[in-house]
């Protein structure tokens, strides 16, 4: 049973590693702390013998988020930086090379900036919904909120981003 769980955890990590890290990063604001949180969460998950009831993805995301919150609490006094969850400019090569227009690059940077300025919970929902394609029910399980609330927060975040893009353009 344990080996089955570990295999599933490994598959899940390989599939969602980027989003898991991003969710942790939205909490900690520091990439090294986010990495520590992801590692800590998986180290704890390895000690489980039984798979959780319900969605394993939701469970793992929740574990990573909780570990990140723990890390943030421990390092509260050191928290002064807030790193973006996105890679630095120029790494979106598929955009800049194919249709390398200045406008598009500007729009990309504006979009990144707008997402970074969302509140923590909304950023987490956006990452889990768009990059990991979790259902609202799974997201609700991670954040311990009703799924309707998760859906509403997501819609509001998208609307806010659209508004920000319109304003910047």
């Amino acid at each position, binding site marked *: 049973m344990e080996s089955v769980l570990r295999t599933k955890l490994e598959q899940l990590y390989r599939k969602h590693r980027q989003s898991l890290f991003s969710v942790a990063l939205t909490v900690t604001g520091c*990439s090294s702390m986010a990495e520590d949180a992801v590692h800590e969460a*998986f180290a704890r998950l390895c000690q489980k013998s039984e798979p959780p009831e319900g969605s394993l993805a939701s469970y793992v995301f929740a574990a990573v988020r909780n570990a990140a919150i723990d890390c943030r609490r421990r390092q509260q006094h050191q928290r002064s930086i807030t790193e973006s969850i996105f890679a630095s400019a120029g790494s979106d090569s598929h*955009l800049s090379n194919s249709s390398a227009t200045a406008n598009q690059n500007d729009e*990309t940077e504006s979009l990144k900036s707008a997402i970074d300025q969302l509140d923590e919970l909304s950023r987490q929902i956006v990452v889990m919904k768009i990059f990991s394609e979790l259902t609202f029910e799974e997201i609700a399980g991670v954040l311990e909120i009703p799924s309707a609330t998760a859906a509403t927060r997501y819609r509001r975040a998208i609307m806010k981003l659209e508004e920000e893009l319109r304003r910047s353009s």
Partner: protein
Amino acid sequence: MSELELKIRALSLRKPDHSLDDRILAALRQSDVTEPTELAPAEKSITPDNVDFSTTLHTNRRGTVVTSGWIVASVSLLIGTVVGNALPSISSLQAQRDTSMNPDQTARIAGSEHRDSANGSVEPRVSEPGDSTLTGNIRLGSGSVASQIVESIWISPTAAAVAWEQQTGQIFNVVNHVSDRRFDMCRECHRVGG
């Protein structure tokens, strides 16, 4: 998915360091390997309580049925016999040496031996407060100390032999020990007349 959602999806998330993959996968695989559990000291030692006499049956040339536990007990007895035979002789040699060095059989007081001085003459040394001293005669007679050691060595095999007898209902074979000088010492552990 709306156009905006597609645009967001096209963005590149910040990537974690490669070392994170190593750490996570190592954690996942490390727990995959079942580490051998360290035996507790009580489990390591072979005692009559934990010797399994009924695991495997073997038949030797003489046709007697022995068990794997019996083999362990036999080896322990053999080692005990060798050590037990050797210790009294060592003790007697030591006793002779002690007698020759200390012919008056008096208590040996630490620090009271005569010591060679730098110029070769021998001068008596007076005991000093820091010196350790023996207040009594430690020579209890040759072999007495050795006997204590031998008895402690013999506890395990003899107890194993008794347990074996109880387990199998057979009589412990003491033929090899009858000629042993210390047979009397361990006789009480053997069945009388066995």
